[in-house]
């Protein structure tokens, strides 16, 4: 699916530019995008280095295991294929907690660590496992208690009550996450049937 989306975006871009007789737009847009991609990665370095250091301390102190044990019933339902005491559980929970509190910068390294652990359990390292898809489902649906970025921007534009959208956002993000979990379940069971699991 990513392959198709990627091809679709590039192909329609080239066609759109050709129709306007402005094929040069493609080149400049591509270079701009490439620059942006590298800039994002460079920006991520400090965050990843810092949080992965903190996460290692938490892991060495046994905090991740504790967290995993505390919330085991919840994640067991969501991740039935992951052994309950596996380190992946601790990272998954840290990732979920960080997202919940809108700590996007901290959530990404924890999510990546969770993916690395899930990859160790994955029989096909080039293909995503269902557990990975569930983790992605939780992350792409963006479940958050406090949408900090948008509150900041509302402040910048002189909103009388920048935080008033927390309630509506909570409702909408809840619906999105619920949908993600249900759709993930649906696709997973279809996939299990097809691949004979």
């Amino acid at each position: 699916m990513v392959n198709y989306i990627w091809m679709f975006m590039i192909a329609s871009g080239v066609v759109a530019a050709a129709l306007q007789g402005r094929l040069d737009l493609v080149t400049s847009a591509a270079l701009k995008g490439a620059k942006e991609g590298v800039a994002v990665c460079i920006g991520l370095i400090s965050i990843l280095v810092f949080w992965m250091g903190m996460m290692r301390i938490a892991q060495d102190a046994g905090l991740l295991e504790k967290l995993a044990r505390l919330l085991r019933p919840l994640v067991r339902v969501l991740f039935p294929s992951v052994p309950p005491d596996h380190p992946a559980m601790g990272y998954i929970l840290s990732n979920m907690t960080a997202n919940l509190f809108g700590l996007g910068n901290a959530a990404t390294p924890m999510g990546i660590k969770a993916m690395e652990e899930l990859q160790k359990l994955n029989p096909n390292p080039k293909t995503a496992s269902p557990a990975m898809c569930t983790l992605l489902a939780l992350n792409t649906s963006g479940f958050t208690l406090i949408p900090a970025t948008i509150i900041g921007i509302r402040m910048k534009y002189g909103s009388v009550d920048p935080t008033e959208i927390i309630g509506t956002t909570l409702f909408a993000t809840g619906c999105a996450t619920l949908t993600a979990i249900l759709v993930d379940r649906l696709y997973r069971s279809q996939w299990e049937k097809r691949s004979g699991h």
Partner: protein
Amino acid sequence: MVEVVSFLSKLMLPAILAFIPLYATFRKVPVYESFTEGAKEGFPTAIQLIPHLVGMMVAVSVFRETGALHFYLRLLSPLVDGIHFPKEVIPLAVLRPISGAGSLAFVESIFRTYGPDSFLGRLASTMQGSTDTTLYVLTVYFGAVGIRRTLYAVKVGLWADLAGMLASWFIVVMVYG
């Protein structure tokens, strides 16, 4: 309730930052050594993401800058008119899954034109806050571990985005309509 959550949210980061090393020291973990040991992994992870993010951002940029995105938006508008979904925020709904920076810029343009406290301003805020940049999240997470085939993850993410957009519209109409 909102105050409590917002207070907790502000307190969360400093609390975590203080608690982890304190607790670890108590458990006799050599905290600084642990930190640097873990931090070492951050750099290669970030570098490994470059091809994935460059690939995705190039496609998004070409799609947007050549006017292709605009064309599809116009194609969509009669369809959305049928269900009375506010036309002004359609670009946001379409941009959100593919580009976080792009959708944020669009929210700002809504704020500039209609104000953050207008119906459209509140709707845009809710839409932006309740969903995430699906394509970016997928690229980063799968890119970091070298996954090529993403199974059904993209579809799940896009369904969640659609649900988030429609739920935002519903709740903002209910509360502020």
